[in-house]
């Protein structure tokens, strides 16, 4: 970032910034006032550079260490596995022969996260736009506080609320969805009227859980849209909604994606809220209203205590899969953002 250095000696090209040396009351003789490098600012520079690059490197080291740990333990488990790790649905780590696979729990993880995103992202964007562009200032402020407060609620509270309140109240919703959208396969119920401890209900709880973080981040982005761009759209005869579509949303696009990724990361990794709501089973069932399925994080949390040896390593292998899913999703989001980088408006 800084100008290239010609020598390994402390760079003297930054000295002219210290104008007091040039025009101060006790100017040094000759070229010494420019070549002098004994100022305390120089040492501060070095310390700061060391501290910040050290933090960056530390982060990479931690990531690599986690990946290495997960991989080593996962390999030992997978080589002991009598089933195919990728295609087996069963999770029989106590049985003999030991068989387990991530097919069902990875599917459950993705399904519940997708349900959560489909519900949460549009609602969150709506709230964020309302706060940033529609609501009167006082209401916007109050609503902003509530959203931030909601973001701080622990996930177990959402889980309890989901299990004790939402599950009984989802019966009607499930029946309605089954009746009118049962033909879509996804909303078909094998046994109508069963307790809705399903991936769908989990998705709804997760949606409410990730709503505040997506809202809070996108609101900040929407507030940063330059007034000049909004006025440009208005002056062309845009209505408020057209102005938002023309100037605000395109400008906030990469921020919206980042916000959604934060939410998705939370949904993929959520443990307690899922464990309290779901009645887990290790089958792939894409009828999302049926009480079936599990997620990776919830499986690890509920089984880790009693597991040992290969069983424990099997859970670590599942953790590795979750790690990879998260990496792939984030990488995909980065690519989407980078593809239109020159249009991002970041330099405007």
């Amino acid at each position, binding site marked *: 970032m800084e100008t290239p250095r010609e020598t390994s000696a402390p760079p003297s090209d930054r000295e002219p910034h210290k104008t007091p040396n040039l025009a101060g009351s006790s100017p040094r003789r000759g070229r010494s006032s420019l070549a002098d490098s004994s100022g305390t600012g120089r040492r501060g520079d070095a310390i700061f550079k060391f501290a910040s690059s050290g933090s960056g490197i530390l982060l990479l080291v931690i990531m690599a260490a986690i990946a290495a740990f997960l991989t080593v333990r996962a390999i030992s488990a997978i080589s002991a596995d009598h089933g195919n790790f990728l295609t087996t649905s069963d999770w029989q780590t106590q049985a003999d022969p030991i068989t387990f696979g991530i097919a069902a729990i990875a599917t459950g993880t993705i399904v519940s996260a997708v349900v959560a995103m489909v519900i949460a992202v549009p609602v969150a964007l709506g709230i964020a736009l309302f706060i940033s562009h529609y609501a009167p*200032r006082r209401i916007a402020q109050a609503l902003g506080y509530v959203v931030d407060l909601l973001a701080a609620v622990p996930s177990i509270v959402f889980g309890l609320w989901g299990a004790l309140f939402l599950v009984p109240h989802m019966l009607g919703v499930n029946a309605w969805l089954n009746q009118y959208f049962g033909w879509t396969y996804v909303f078909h119920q094998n046994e109508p009227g069963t307790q809705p401890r399903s991936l769908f209900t989990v998705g709804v709880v997760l949606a409410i859980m990730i709503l505040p973080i997506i809202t809070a981040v996108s609101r900040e982005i929407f507030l940063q849209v*330059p007034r*000049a*761009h909004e*006025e*440009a*759209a*208005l*002056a*062309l*005869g*845009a*209505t408020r909604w*057209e102005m938002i579509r*023309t*100037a605000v949303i*395109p*400008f906030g*696009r990469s921020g919206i994606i980042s916000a959604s990724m934060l939410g998705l990361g939370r949904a993929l990794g959520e443990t307690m809220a899922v464990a309290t709501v779901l009645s887990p089973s290790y089958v792939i069932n894409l009828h999302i209203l049926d009480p079936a399925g599990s997620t990776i994080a919830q499986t690890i949390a509920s089984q880790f205590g009693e597991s040992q040896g290969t069983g424990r390593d099997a859970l670590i292998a599942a953790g590795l899969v979750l790690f990879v899913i998260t990496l792939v999703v984030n990488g995909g989001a980065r690519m989407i953002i980078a593809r*239109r980088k*020159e*249009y*991002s*408006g970041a*330099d*405007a």
Partner: protein
Amino acid sequence: MAKRIDVSGLNAYYGNFRAVEDISMVVEPRTVTAFIGPSGCGKSTFLRTLNRMHEVIPGARVEGKVMLDDENLYGSNIDPVAVRRTVGMVFQRPNPFPTMSIKENVAAGLKLNGVRNKKVVDEAVERSLRGANLWNEVKDRLDKPGAGLSGGQQQRLCIARAIAVEPQVLLMDEPCSALDPISTLAIEDLIGQLKEQYTIVIVTHNMQQAARVSDRTAFFNLSGVGQPGRLIEIDSTEKIFSNPSVQATEDYISGRFG
């Protein structure tokens, strides 16, 4: 295409603060009218009342009448959105949409008007870019981002965007103040060509510019800080710059102000 503007008894407010007081003037079609005056005298505020952009600022409101030919822009049945489609605006700082290509920028207004026909859009884009003297510079990179152009090119892009929807009037709020002399000259030449089709009102701090481009000049002033801006006089540019009727105008123009 061009229309006549007839303003009478116009006051503009920011909350309780009156920024512009009792302005009346006539702007003839196919002329360039320049607004000059010291900072804070309400020229830009007044300009923004001519396409109802003033009221997009929270708390801002307008009293009085702005007739565009025989329609009052502040009539009770008038939609401000429709007004802005009729009266286009170019801002002080070039503000092309950063997320759009050059072509998309020019077509933005057409898209808002519901023009979807690709052929019609392409023709309008070329016509507007030619009209803004930008076509030859950008015709090979219409799909590149508008924000990648130089400042002067960006401002001409904004002019192309404004004229693409074929407004009746074009308002320019210090369009050259962020540009170098060569780009400024390009825009001034362009204003000379545009006045054959449009009624143009331009706010400028550059008196030579007002003298070069305008047919009529309006001088605005304020009697003190916190006082509303008022129109001191409006006359042919030649008269304002050679023999103004009011002493304050002469003082301002000759640089003997204050």
